[in-house]
């Protein structure tokens, strides 16, 4: 067999699509074909639903799919980070059993990591998985779980040994969500939306086949998931762009997409909507106020500087230069931009910024910005954790000595259970 080139890959995909693609197929049926062919995940290993192609060739294959209007495998939500974790740490049986229905979208997944007592300090989770004859019995509480209400499976970080230090007593599981002992309750946020859930686990069962990686090596497995979580945050920006055509499959895709996007509909407001500032200030006449102009400038300047800082990181990468500090600042930068934009919106609106809904400026959009922005500096790693990372990895400052890293977890001081 000859070595694939971009031209040969494109030819092969086109030929395969002529034989197989039709917008009148059912979504799951089409995706099953796609997964069998390996063109659904062309960069994955050939043994596991892929083609083993390097990134550039995989991108060419995906490009041909796009040109043909063909629908891809399901990749919304936490699916792709579950998949990456299973590919790296799962058994063959797990990959065979779990990955196909994950890729068709028939199974949905959620991530059971954070707990009320364990947020930034994720390795301090205290959900208990007690071994028994058939597997494990799980008891504990998880939180901030997007899409848990309709998920079939959850990836679960739980403690299996209380006598070891915190990082070493953890194991990583796949928890079947549809069972007695798993109760999902929506959590209402300060902005009124319910994008997340609390998951109460009391005596839920996991069979032997549910352990991912070795017993006690759950932290290592979780790190793989977390590494892909950052990439997920980047790719989320593309989720909003849906390529639709005419046919049964697109109708099903639209329904799937609407369900997936439901928890994220306020995310644009969370980022502060700096894009609206100038236009709003002009329309309201507040642009005449020099104090308002200062607030607008502060927001727009750091928004643009933040974009340019990201562009510098990309430019350095493209030139084959090592990334400087500019690559690690994005998350903290985004928090600063969101806060400055919210402040400028309030400054433009003045007294009106007390009003919400149809009484508020922009039919309530500004109120939604003001009460959504605080999420920005918490979700996906708080500003404080980001500052630690920047100080340690970029500036080379030493870690804060932790008091709990070496002692048995049973003796570590913790939040009292159930408290938040």
């Amino acid at each position: 067999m000859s070595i694939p080139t971009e031209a040969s890959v494109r030819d092969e995909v086109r030929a395969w699509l002529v034989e197989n693609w039709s917008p009148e197929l059912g979504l799951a049926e089409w995706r099953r074909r796609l997964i069998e062919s390996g063109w659904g995940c062309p960069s994955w290993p050939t043994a596991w639903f892929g083609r083993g192609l390097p990134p550039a060739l995989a991108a060419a294959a995906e490009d041909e799919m796009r040109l043909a209007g063909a629908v891809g495998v399901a990749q919304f939500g936490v699916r792709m980070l579950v998949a990456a974790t299973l590919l790296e740490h799962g058994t063959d049986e797990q990959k065979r059993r779990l990955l196909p229905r994950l890729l068709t979208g028939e199974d949905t997944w959620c991530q059971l990591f954070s707990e009320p007592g364990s947020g930034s300090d994720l390795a301090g989770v205290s959900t208990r998985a007690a071994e028994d004859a058939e597997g494990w019995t799980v008891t504990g509480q998880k939180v901030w779980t997007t899409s848990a209400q309709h998920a079939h499976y959850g990836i679960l970080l739980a403690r299996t040994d209380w006598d070891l230090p915190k990082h070493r007593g953890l194991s990583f599981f796949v928890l079947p969500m549809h069972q007695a002992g798993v109760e999902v309750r929506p959590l209402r946020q300060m902005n009124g939306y319910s994008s997340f859930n609390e998951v109460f686990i009391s005596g839920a069962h996991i069979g032997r086949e549910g352990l991912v990686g070795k017993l006690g090596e759950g932290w290592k497995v979780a790190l793989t998931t977390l590494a892909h979580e950052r990439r997920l945050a980047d790719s989320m920006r593309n989720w909003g762009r849906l390529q639709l055509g005419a046919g049964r499959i697109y109708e099903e895709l639209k329904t799937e997409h609407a369900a997936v996007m439901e928890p994220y509909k306020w995310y644009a407001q969370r980022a502060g909507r700096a894009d609206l500032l100038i236009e709003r200030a002009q329309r309201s006449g507040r642009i005449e106020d020099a104090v308002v102009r200062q607030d607008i400038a502060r927001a727009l300047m750091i928004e643009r500087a933040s974009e340019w800082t990201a562009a510098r990181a990309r430019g350095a990468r493209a030139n084959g230069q090592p990334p400087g500090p500019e690559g690690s600042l994005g998350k903290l930068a985004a928090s600063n931009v969101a806060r400055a934009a919210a402040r400028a919106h309030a400054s433009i609106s003045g007294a009106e910024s007390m009003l919400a809904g149809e009484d508020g400026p922009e039919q309530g959009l500004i109120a939604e910005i003001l009460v959504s922005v605080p999420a920005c500096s918490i979700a996906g790693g708080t500003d404080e954790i980001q500052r630690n990372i920047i100080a340690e990895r970029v500036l080379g400052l030493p870690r804060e000595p932790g008091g709990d890293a070496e002692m048995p977890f049973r003796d570590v001081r913790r939040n009292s259970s159930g408290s938040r």
Partner: protein
Amino acid sequence: MQFAFTEEQHQYRDIVARFCREQSPSTRVRAQMASEAGFDRELWKQLCGDLGMSGVHVPEALGGHGYGAVELGIASEEMGRVNFCGPYFSSCVLASYALLNGATPRQQAEWLPQLCSGAVIASLALAETGGSWHPGTVTATAVERDGHWRIDGIKSYVLDGHVADLFIVAARRPGSQGLEGLSLFAVPATARGLSAHPLKTIDTTRRLSRVEFNGVQASLLGEAETAAAGLLRTLDQATIALASEMVGGAQALLDSTVAYAKLRVQFGRVIGSFQAIKHRLADLLLELEFARSAAYRACELAAEDPLPLREAAAMAKALASDAFMLAAREAVQLHGGIGFTWEHDTHLYFKRAQGSSVLLGSAAEHRDRYVLSLAARAAGDRL
């Protein structure tokens, strides 16, 4: 390539950085600070001669190196890093740009090679006692009689006015207002009726003078009463170079403070391991990188049309002013008592930051310019 330096530009930075590090250690900066001239003529000769840093952005035909604003930004940043003393910003940046943007080709050919060689130190006399660099605020007057121009007025905040050989002076037709009626003139420092008075400055690495003109004979540069656009462009381009210099100074402060935080032990651990310190330094790094991105991008845009140029310059200066001042405050604070001593170098940068933060306009003024320009463009787009 945008947002990234070429291999050549990296090499240029290495050369300039090495020169600055080797020839301008803080001992030498302190000696220059204490001197009457405020700079070392030998060092100045080196900079203008072998290195040709003086004309980095000036076309080769006019005695320069023929590089662009990006290389000028690199040179400025590296000089800022060591608090370089000398009339670089006054003569090579402000005055050179004023000539490039406002003088006739013949006048450029007369003056720029001398500025590039260092034989003549020039300075732009624009701001007055009101402390604004906006050309519209100029009150000095210029009157032509019998083919001779004469200038009356008082200029202030004139950079290196105590050592300048040549002043580039902005003055207006009596009775004109705003950006109308402005002309640019060349006046030798020896002209009759001209007197320069050095001002006491917080930052003694950058000197300022008040320069009085009493019926001083002057040579018109460019065409009469058309100087405004060239002056605005000059200010924007010089603002970008100044912002680059400030980024270099802020980086030097961050570096020294981080190094100190890794060494200084209190309560049995280095202070850099306390989150109270780490978080402040992380925030400082973020502000500095914002300022750096703005300055680098502005250098790339320095040849652009007036509005994008003005916005890029305003943003670069506002962010650099805030970042440099934050770096200066944090450097003093995190060094503790030693940071407040004369012996420690932090105060050299603190004073440079204090001065630079308002030179060519404060951060607040530049924020205002920025938004007004964006708003004007948005309104234009909607028409």
